[in-house]
C-alpha cells in the first residue's frame, strides 16, 4: 500500500515526537486556564517538585539563572504544582487579573 502524504501533514511513527525540547506552535494548549501559578523566587529552594509533578512539563529548570521557569503556553492551570510546592513559593492567581491573561481559544480546533 502506498500513500501520498503531503509533507506538512506528515506524522512520525506512532506520533512520537522529541520532547520536551520541541513545542508545537500549532498546538498551544495553555489558552483555556482559569488560574495560573505564580512563583515567589525568594521562597523557592529549587526542590524540583513542580518540575517533576507537572503533567505537561510546564516547569523547567533554567540552570544559568538557577531558577525554575513557567511555560504559559501549555499550562492548563491544574494547580498540582501549587499543591506540591514544598516551601509555599507557588500560589494560585486568577488568570484575568493579569494584563496578558488568556480569555478563550483564539481559534476553534
Amino acid at each position: 500500500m502506498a500513500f501520498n502524504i503531503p509533507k506538512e501533514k506528515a506524522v512520525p511513527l506512532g506520533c512520537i515526537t522529541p520532547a520536551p525540547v520541541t513545542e508545537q506552535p500549532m498546538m498551544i494548549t495553555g489558552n483555556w486556564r482559569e488560574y495560573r501559578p505564580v512563583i515567589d523566587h525568594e521562597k523557592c529552594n529549587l526542590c524540583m517538585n513542580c518540575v517533576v509533578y507537572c503533567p505537561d512539563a510546564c516547569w523547567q529548570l533554567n540552570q544559568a539563572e538557577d531558577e525554575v521557569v513557567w511555560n504559559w503556553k501549555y499550562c492548563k492551570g491544574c494547580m498540582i504544582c501549587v499543591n506540591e510546592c514544598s516551601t509555599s513559593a507557588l500560589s494560585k492567581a486568577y488568570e484575568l487579573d493579569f494584563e496578558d491573561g488568556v480569555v478563550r481559544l483564539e481559534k476553534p480546533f
Partner: protein
Amino acid sequence: MAKEMVLSGCAASAQAAKLAKVEVACSYPIRPYTAFMMELAKMVANGELDCEFIHGEGEHAQLSVVFGAAAAGARAITGSSGVGVTYAMETYSPIAGGRVPLQMMIADRALDPPGDFGSEHTDAMSTRDQGWLLGWAETPQEALDNCLINYRVGEDHRVLLPQMVCQDGYFVSHIPGPVLVPDQAQVDEFLPPYKLPHPLDPKRPVSHGPQIRPDQGTIMDMQRAEAMLAAPQVIKEAFEDFGRIFGRKYSFLDQYKTEDAEIVFFIQGAHAFTARHAINHLRAKGVKIGLVKLRFVRPWPTQDVAEVLSKFKAVGVIETSTSYGGAMRGGNLLHEVRASLYDCPQRPITTSFMAGLGGEVIPLHEFYSMAETLSGYLKAGKAKKTVHWVGFEAE
C-alpha cells in the same frame, strides 16, 4: 531438548512468557485467566524468571502499566478475561496507535449480565477493530506457540502492534493437555530481543501520545492500517521459521479432512477439538465433511479464506461470539467470511451456527445436527437462513 509436559492453557502460556523472557508483568485477578498470573508469580518468586511483577488496581491500570513498561523498552505481558477485557477498552486504541507491541493473554469468559463464568469469544471479539493482532488457540500447545509467534510478529518493525493471544476459558485455560515445552535456545533463535525503535529514554527524551491536529488523524489511522496490512507477510515468515525450529507447522487456516469435502465447519478456538471427532464419526457414515480452523481474526486472512472456502459447496460458520443486530443476525465471523467470498466467481452456500455461548459445551450431537442442516442446504441449493441458534430452533 524440548520437554514433554502436561499443562493447562494458563500454565502453558506462563511457560511461553518465561521462554520469551518477559521483563514486566501486570496482574489483576479475574477468572479464568488468573491461573496464568499465578503461574507467572510463582516463577518470579522462585527466581526462575527475572521479571518485575506488578499488581494493577484494575484492568485499565494493568494495560496502562504494561503500556508504559513496553514503551520504555521492556517486553511486557498482561492478561484478563470477560468484563476485565472490556473494562480496559479505552487503552487498546492508544497502545495500538502508539505502536507499542505488548502482549495480552486472554482466557475468554462470557460478558455480564448477569455473570457467567463460561467461555465465550465476545469479550476479545469486541475489541477487534482497535489495531491489535487477535487470534485463538485450540489447545495448551497452541496457547504456548501463539504467545511466541505473536511476540515475534508484533515486535517486527514492519508491524509494531500489540497482540491479544486468546484461548477459551476452562476448555483450554484449565484442561491440561500434552505440551512440548521448547528449549530456551530454540526460542532465542526464533524470537529476537525486543527492540522498540522509539523507546522512552531519559537520555533521548520523546513524547508518547501527544495531542495531534484533526487533519493528522487520517494519517495516524493510515499508519495503523498499513501495519496491519504488512502483518500477514510477517506472520507467514514467522510460521515458516516456527516450523523449521520447533517442527510444528502452522498456517492461517488449518484444514482437517477437507481434501474431498463438500461441506465444512469454519471455526476458531477450543471447540475445533470436538468438531474433529464429530467429523470422524460423520465421515464413517459417509458424510463428506471437513473442518477449516481460523488462527487469526486480525489480521483477517481475506485471500486465504477466499481461496480455501470457495473450494467447498457449503460452509457452516460456528460462532462462539455475538454481534447483536448484525447483518447476519448472529455472530461476527460470517460477516467476514461472506465479505471475503464476495469477489469469488464460485461461492459456497454459507450460514452460521450460534453454539457454545456462555461457556456451554458443544456436544457431538449438536455438530451432527449442524452437519444435517448444511447437507439439507446443499441438497436445496441454498441456505434458508443466515443464523441458527443450535439446540433452540423451533423447526
